[in-house]
Structure formats: C-alpha cells, structure tokens
C-alpha cells in the first residue's frame, strides 16, 4: 500500500520535471527560464525524495529525507534569485517587457 502511494508521488514529481523542461524549450527569456527551473528543481525533487522514502520506510531514512526536504526548499529559491540577478547584471535581453523597474539603476550594471 505504501509503495503504491510512493509510486504515484514519484510520477507526480517526474511530471513536474517534464513541465520545467518544456518551459525551458518554450519560454522566450532567461528570467522566465529561471522561474521554471526554480519551481521544478524545488518541488519536483522534494516530491521524488518523498516517494523514494515511502518505498523503503525506516527511521534513519526518514531523518535524512527531512534534512533533504528542508535543504532543498531553502536553497532552491536562493539559488534561483542569485542566477536571475547575475543574468540581469550580464545584460541578458528582456523580451515582451511591459515595465522594468531596474532601468534607472545603472550603478550595478557591468560595463
């Protein structure tokens, strides 16, 4: 019974990964790519780790899985924001832009 729930959760996480890869192929811009990759790497990897834990549930495996989930949810957002900031500093082009609040701030741009 536990293995069936684990298999369903693993397939859900793999579908989140496929969604992120499809967004990498379809989206026009580096910043939308960052949003897709942050979502897929954060919640998809958490779902896959929970499914792997449900396949063989012991107490030590549960402790390690809790550590993985906490570390992944903390570091995924921080890494994505660092990548987006570096892409803006390296002058990656914005497409389909409606407004850009960082346009006046020329102090941090690379020359």
């Amino acid at each position, binding site marked *: 019974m536990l293995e069936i729930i684990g298999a369903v959760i693993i397939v859900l996480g793999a579908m989140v990964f496929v969604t*992120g890869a499809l967004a990498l192929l379809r989206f026009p811009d580096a910043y939308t790519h960052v949003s897709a990759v942050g979502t897929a790497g954060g919640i998809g990897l958490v779902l896959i780790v929970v499914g792997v834990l449900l396949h063989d549930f012991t107490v030590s495996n549960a402790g390690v899985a809790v550590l993985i989930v906490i570390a992944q949810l903390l570091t995924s957002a921080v890494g994505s924001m660092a990548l987006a*900031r*570096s892409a803006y*500093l390296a002058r990656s082009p914005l497409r389909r832009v409606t407004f850009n609040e960082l346009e006046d701030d020329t102090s941090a741009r690379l020359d």
Partner: protein
Amino acid sequence: MIGVVIGIVLVGLAGVSTVYRMVTGPTDAERAIAGDMLMFCVIALLALFGVLLDTPSALEIVLIAALLAFLSTIALARALTRGRR
C-alpha cells in the same frame, strides 16, 4: 516498481531536452540556467536508481548532492558576471 521506471524515463527525457537548451542557448545566462536544471535532473536520477538497484544508502548520497547543487548554482551565478559582485 513500475512507477520508478516511469519516473526514470520522464526525468531522462527532461534531461535530454535540457541538454538541447544548453547547446543552443542564445546567451550565456540561459546556458547557466540549463546547467542548474541538469544538476537537479541528475540528483533525481540518483534517487530513483537507488530505489531501482536496492542501494542501502541512496538518500545520504542525495543529501550530499543537493548541498553540492546549491554550491554549484552560486558558483555559476558568480562566474556569469565574470567575478564582479
């Protein structure tokens, strides 16, 4: 066990399309972002193959790989701006 095989196939397809984006990215920023996504795909494949091959310590390897993925993401973001903060 059939769910693990389906997950391996789907994550492998995601990794292959990510490699295509890495090869044909218009700018360096998109190549760095695709490298981050490829690292996540490799970590997911590590966890799934640990279940498929009945490895006793798969989750510890995944923990170390997740922390190294954060370190590599920060290193990519630093290398993208040529060392300027």
